[in-house]
């Protein structure tokens, strides 16, 4: 497995990176941690003439935690897990990041790469939808912000234009209970099914609930109806069943080596039920 040749660029600033993208159009691709892109390049499933490495761009790094959380796109999974302030503010992130790949991959794999490449197997996109994060994109005409829930069209197809770079992720500081429940065959595998839940409660009743599912469609799925089914309830069996039923309306899994559609739909319901229970227990 040997990659094809490419011209390598390592810009120091976002404008420099954008200039390379503008110049080379669809022949150029940005690389962050590379752990999705490089295996694909090694199998020659994609041809990239110009590789734009973002590692030297200081503006793509950094985590700031306030009422709004801002995470630089080049922040690694390892950094997400070990950043004390972030773990306290958004514990769901670390819980999920620990279930991504393995230690070596987490040292290099970035949140930006994970959300931007549009791989439906990635965990962060669903999580970002659950947390109602927004993606800050820089392009030749300026910067714009897109809600995660509006970002994904299909497998590897997103709102990001080819000449744009994801620079940061922003999200409101969440509160309440949370859980990321993932079933996988082994460490390093994508999810058979995974569910992210973040909820708040007032007087023992759910006030707000957000539910997102991973690897159960060609895009991550934020199920507004599933969340709505929980609001006002104490997450008893009836409410959970309603949320699961609503979620099952929103997903569309395909068969693969992990199993057939029927199995995935069943497991999706199970992991969501467990995620809801754990999130509720953490309220």
């Amino acid at each position, binding site marked *: 497995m*040997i990659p094809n*040749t490419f011209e390598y660029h390592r810009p120091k600033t976002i404008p420099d990176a954008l200039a390379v993208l503008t110049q080379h159009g669809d022949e150029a691709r940005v690389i962050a941690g590379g752990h999705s892109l490089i295996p694909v390049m090694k199998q020659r499933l994609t041809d990239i003439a110009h590789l734009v490495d973002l590692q030297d761009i200081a503006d793509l790094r950094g985590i700031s935690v306030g009422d709004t959380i801002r995470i630089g796109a080049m922040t690694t999974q390892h950094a997400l897990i070990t950043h004390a302030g972030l773990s306290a503010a958004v514990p769901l992130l670390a819980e999920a990041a620990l279930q991504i790949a393995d230690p070596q991959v987490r040292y290099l794999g970035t949140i930006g790469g994970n959300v931007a490449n549009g791989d439906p197997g990635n965990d962060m996109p669903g999580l970002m939808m659950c947390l109602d994060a927004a993606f800050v994109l820089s392009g030749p005409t300026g910067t714009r912000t897109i809600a995660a829930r509006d970002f994904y069209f299909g497998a590897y197809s997103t709102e990001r234009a080819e000449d744009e770079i994801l620079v940061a992720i922003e999200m409101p500081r969440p509160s309440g209970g949370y859980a990321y429940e993932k*079933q996988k*065959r*082994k*460490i390093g595998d994508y999810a*058979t099914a995974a569910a992210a839940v973040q909820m708040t409660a007032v007087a023992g009743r759910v006030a707000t609930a957000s539910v997102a599912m991973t690897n159960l469609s060609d895009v991550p799925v934020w199920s507004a109806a599933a969340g709505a089914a929980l609001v006002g309830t104490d997450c008893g069996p009836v409410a959970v069943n309603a949320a699961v039923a609503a979620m099952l309306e929103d997903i569309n899994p395909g068969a693969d080596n992990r*199993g*057939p559609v029927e199995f995935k739909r069943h497991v999706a319901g199970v992991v969501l039920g467990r995620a809801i229970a754990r999130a509720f227990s953490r309220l």
Partner: protein
Amino acid sequence: MNDLSHDQRVAGLKGLGSSRKRVEDARFTQGKGNYVDDIKMPDMLFGDFVRSQYAHARIRSVDTSKAVALPGVIAVLQAADLAPLGLHWMPTLAGDKQMVLADGKVLFQGQEIAFVIAEDRYICADAIELIEVEYEELPVVVDPFKALQPGAPVLREDLAGQTKGAHGERIHHNHIFRWEVGDKEGTEAVVAGADVVAEEMVYYHRTHPCPLETCGCVASMDKINGKLTLWGTFQAPHVVRTVASLLSGIPESSIRVVSPDIGGGFGNKVGVYPGYVCAIVASIVTGRPVKWIEDRMDNLMATAFARDYWMQGKIAATAEGKITGLWCHVTADHGAFDACADPTKFPAGFFSICTGSYDIPVAYVGVDGVYTNKAPGGVAYRCSFRVTEAAYFIERMIEVLAIKLGMDSAELRRINFIRKEQFPYQSALGWEYDSGDYHTAWDKALNAVGYDALRAEQAQRVADFKAGKTRSLMGIGLSFFTEIVGAGPVKNCDILGMGMFDSCEIRIHPTGSALARLGTISQGQGHATTFAQILATETGIPADQITIEEGDTDTAPYGLGTYGSRSTPVAGAATAMAGRKIRAKAQMIAAYLLEVHDNDLEWDVDRFVVKGVPERFKTMKEIAYAAYNQAIPGLEPGLEAVSYYDPPNMTYPFGAYICVMDIDADTGVADIRSFYALDDCGTRINPMIIEGQVHGGATEAFAIAMGQEIAYDEMGNCMTGTLMDFFLPTAWETPHYTTDFTETPSPHHPIGAKGVGESPNVGGVPAFSNAVHDAFRPFGLTQSHMPHDHWRIWRIANQLGLHG
């Protein structure tokens, strides 16, 4: 040394029974191993394959013009280039032949079409992408039952009209052989008249040994002296030399085959692959060394797979549970070429050990080998020639029978075990089991795990499940296996005509240290450590002063290599026998030095002592010096010995494994709570290494039973070409093991050792699989095929109506 006590001298040898630390580890832990891809030679080229995208297609054309024009590309070989040398096809170990490069058509996805030779692996990869192959797709058969239907596509056009194969009659154009053992009529009569008959199809799915290091080689033809040197991942370097000589016409004396350090084999590195042949030809053509290293996808898609046996069984018993007969028919999917690695006369290996550990009066086995559009292979993956399939079959059939009888399967096993006093035991299918004490081992195992308490806990769990208090089920997986290893007696075991003996050559140096060379080759088993231990006990030379060398055909004596747990039973025996020759000569030297008759001496750990006069002795160190330093009347100088050992029989290690698992009925996730492994491998040479072998083999069993497979879709596309999908468990998923042992020496092996490397895989797979089955037995499950990954376990629960 003379001041040391007897026990201190024994301990100082680090001989048999010592958990000696491994001598290999210093280099491996420092990154100083020498594996084949570490070999670098001046002017070395790199070769790699264009492989078929299709499972069955005619090759219309191969356009190499763009590749050849790429700077750094030396040549591209195709079948037509090899044909004048007669090397476009090669013989397989199973009496079939296999395309080296596609000769008009391809028969499996990943098949080798052209071999690109370039200055380095980057240029080689670029060139491969530039080669355009025009295919004409042909209908694909991946199901061996469909392959045998009358109108099935013809896969092997080269065999058109041949009604006889290497193993007798072919009854269909996709049929390879029928092999039958035992008393068919007698068995069928018993089955027809039995109180109880359990019948089941048991499938052991296709998987792959997948050693962490893939296969590869470096071929270097020295045109000046006409000598070919071949370094590679060979589990049987001497056999490779013989094959290379037969294929190339170069005399064996001008071929040197070297197996350097090998990064795991597990059967994958027994076969001869097109890469080896092409690298040799490329080196001969270019006059430069050529390296070929397959990548992981190549390895999983094209080099030897294992298993893929459909085993239809009938087991007959009395109403009390005494087994009266066993009938089995196997449909064996061999893929596109019959490249199984078995002793020549055994096209289904030692599958006829499938009567297992039980005293079964009559039995029959028939095996039909079938061609399909899948990769060739059929190697023994941590297994002695289809013994894993046999053990899985009988251990499933025992469970199926227990269900039919309404009996506890631990008790069913107990009442059918071959009894201790029956050894040596003649099995209904023709094997002579050397020694065993199954009841003792079984009782020890059941007691160790607290079997009765586990069953009580399980009964409570079932009650709780039915009452809606839990969604978790509990399975207790029992397995009692008997292996047949150490192939084998030359009278009935050979590979390509080479009898399956093995060898050891020893030189004792004047100062009392030693060098021993063997015909085997370690792939992690620690031969350099353990063979020195055998020799230490036999010769009284401390193991730390004995160097073991293997794997270089220029220096090592001829041997058949390391697979099928044969190193200890065969080469280990050769080592002991050679050691005894050394000791016999040493006794004569000592007698001369001490001026007594040979018979007046007795051996004591590391010396010969004059009987009754303990202060008069000569140590082996002194004797070794004398062998080189004195003219001893009637004796040649020096102290060397060679032994070629032809074992009188196989050895029959056995063991009892018990797995306890908890299963989430809703997700199909299984948690291994405990795994207990009792092994009886006869005399234990190095307990530390034995335990390590058991951990490793049990982990491979865990992987195979719980998820590892080579899967194809209907188009013959291999769906499991990377380690994302081909299940190799990490430290996180892998269970914790408890090991135990009994010790029943082999009566015919010089030191009583039986071999252990493969036992945990042979016995482990049924233990894991039976645990899954056992969890669902109370709900009506009889049989469900492996691998038991999440969705297949979930499917069991779903089909049993456990999801409401």
